[in-house]
């Protein structure tokens, strides 16, 4: 017996990012090509070889979240909780859905560094003891759990930790869970607060961070820029959403994964190309159906070269869709990157407008990419969002306009 295929739509969104602490602010900044990259605010004695990060400003969770949950969480989980609250309020998911029919699927790779590092410093310097809430604050799944507690969601609750692809994997799995009938709705996204001194020094030691700010796909690119934030989207089975008259942003139509099985930091084009092909197959779309690609585009020499080659391999040397990386605006938010970029991709479809690849001038001619240098209206069909992680963990998502 062939059951009719369930389709999945996005009916709510929320975010906390360096370019806006709401979807409205994020959207305005995105299409205005505004950058959230700024000098890092650390104590003067804490020296770094780079000066630029994408930090969330004016974040006041104490005005938005219950005090009992605030005490047990740190910045990363709080980004996720606030984004989820915005998304749920917009979608009016409850009481439309029984709590057991809803999933929470988050991506967080780094965990609660802001709760961890100061405690470790105290301990090692014999200046105090470790706070008893350190474990619940630090664990990477804290955000997913606290979101479920906040809304009383009793369906599956998961956290993906697949480095820079964490929330793309989370989003894709939430999509497949709804399509397969495991649940009828999901809060899908990610959150990360990795801008602690110890973690920034660890990235500095890897020599992959840009001195003054990332320039994805540019000939002048010199590395990535770390960012923080969170984004959560509400996914629903389409018929349920239509029946209840929900606002529909876009349809989620494809998810592809692969792994490089090659190197813990070096990318190889075959893996990303395979993820993109798998997403197209999953969506039953052809490369020509895609009218925009939101690239992983970190701004490192190796990522941008491998990703460009993979895009050309899948979509053709010439005539491939317009491409942009939005990381020079919101930074590379590690576990939250896939969710924030899924939001950017969805907004491009909704507003029929292409986000500029900020920082890409002058473009690297060797990459041979159709980069977006000026924001322009377009006739959207489907759009892809790529996330490729250290360790060769690749995820591509496909969205299309919902009419």
């Amino acid at each position, binding site marked *: 017996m062939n059951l009719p295929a369930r389709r999945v739509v996005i009916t709510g969104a929320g975010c906390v990012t360096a370019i806006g602490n709401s979807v409205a602010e994020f959207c305005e900044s995105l299409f205005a090509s505004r950058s959230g990259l700024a000098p890092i605010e650390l104590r003067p004695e804490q020296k770094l070889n780079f000066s630029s990060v994408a930090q969330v400003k004016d974040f006041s969770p104490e005005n938005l979240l219950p005090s009992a949950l605030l005490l047990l969480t740190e910045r990363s989980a709080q980004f996720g909780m606030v984004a989820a609250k915005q998304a749920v309020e917009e979608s009016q998911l409850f009481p439309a859905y029984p709590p057991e029919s809803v999933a929470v699927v988050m991506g967080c790779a780094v965990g609660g560094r802001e709760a961890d590092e100061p405690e470790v410093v105290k301990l090692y310097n014999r200046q105090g003891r470790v706070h*008893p809430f350190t474990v619940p604050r630090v664990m990477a799944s804290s955000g997913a759990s606290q979101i479920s507690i906040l809304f009383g969601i009793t369906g599956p609750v998961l956290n993906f930790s697949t480095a820079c692809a964490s929330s793309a994997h989370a989003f894709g799995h939430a999509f497949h869970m709804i399509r397969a009938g495991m649940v009828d709705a999901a809060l899908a996204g990610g959150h990360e607060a990795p801008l602690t001194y110890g973690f920034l020094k660890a990235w500095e030691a890897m020599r992959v961070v840009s001195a003054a700010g990332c320039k994805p796909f540019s000939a002048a690119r010199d590395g990535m820029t770390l960012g923080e934030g969170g984004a959560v989207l509400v996914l629903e089975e389409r018929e349920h959403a239509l029946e209840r008259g929900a606002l529909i942003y876009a349809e989620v139509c494809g998810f592809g994964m692969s792994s490089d099985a090659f190197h813990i930091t070096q990318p190889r084009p075959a893996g990303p190309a395979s993820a993109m092909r798998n997403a197209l197959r999953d969506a039953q779309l052809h490369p020509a159906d895609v009218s925009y690609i939101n690239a992983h585009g970190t701004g490192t020499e190796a990522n941008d070269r491998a990703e460009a080659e993979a895009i050309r391999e899948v979509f053709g040397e010439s005539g491939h869709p317009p491409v942009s990386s939005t990381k020079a605006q919101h930074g590379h938010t590690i576990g939250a990157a896939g969710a924030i970029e899924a939001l950017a991709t969805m907004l491009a479809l909704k507003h029929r407008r292409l986000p500029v690849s900020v920082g890409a001038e002058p473009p690297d001619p060797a990459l041979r990419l159709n980069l977006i240098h000026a924001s322009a209206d377009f006739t959207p069909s489907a759009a892809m969002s790529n996330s490729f992680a250290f360790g060769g963990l690749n995820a591509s998502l496909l969205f299309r306009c919902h009419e």
Partner: protein
Amino acid sequence: MQTPSNDVVLERCIQLIAKSRKVAPETISPDTSFESLGADSLDMINLSFEVEELFDVQIPDDALSSIHTVQDMAKGVSDLIAAKPSVPVEKQA
């Protein structure tokens, strides 16, 4: 600094518990139970940590389960202070 008297320990404990549970100190008496204040096991661990920091003592793990009221906590702290070999230093509240 002098060793705090039992009354001072009790009063400091009440102030700390009131702040933590977000209630007025006047509503807390020595007989007030932590259960009546809505404190769960995680809250008790946090309260114990704060009391330990305040009085520079270490409440043994097995003693925690026998603390049911404010007086239990204050007496336990006073006993720990009295058992310390050197003059305890009362930290800033």
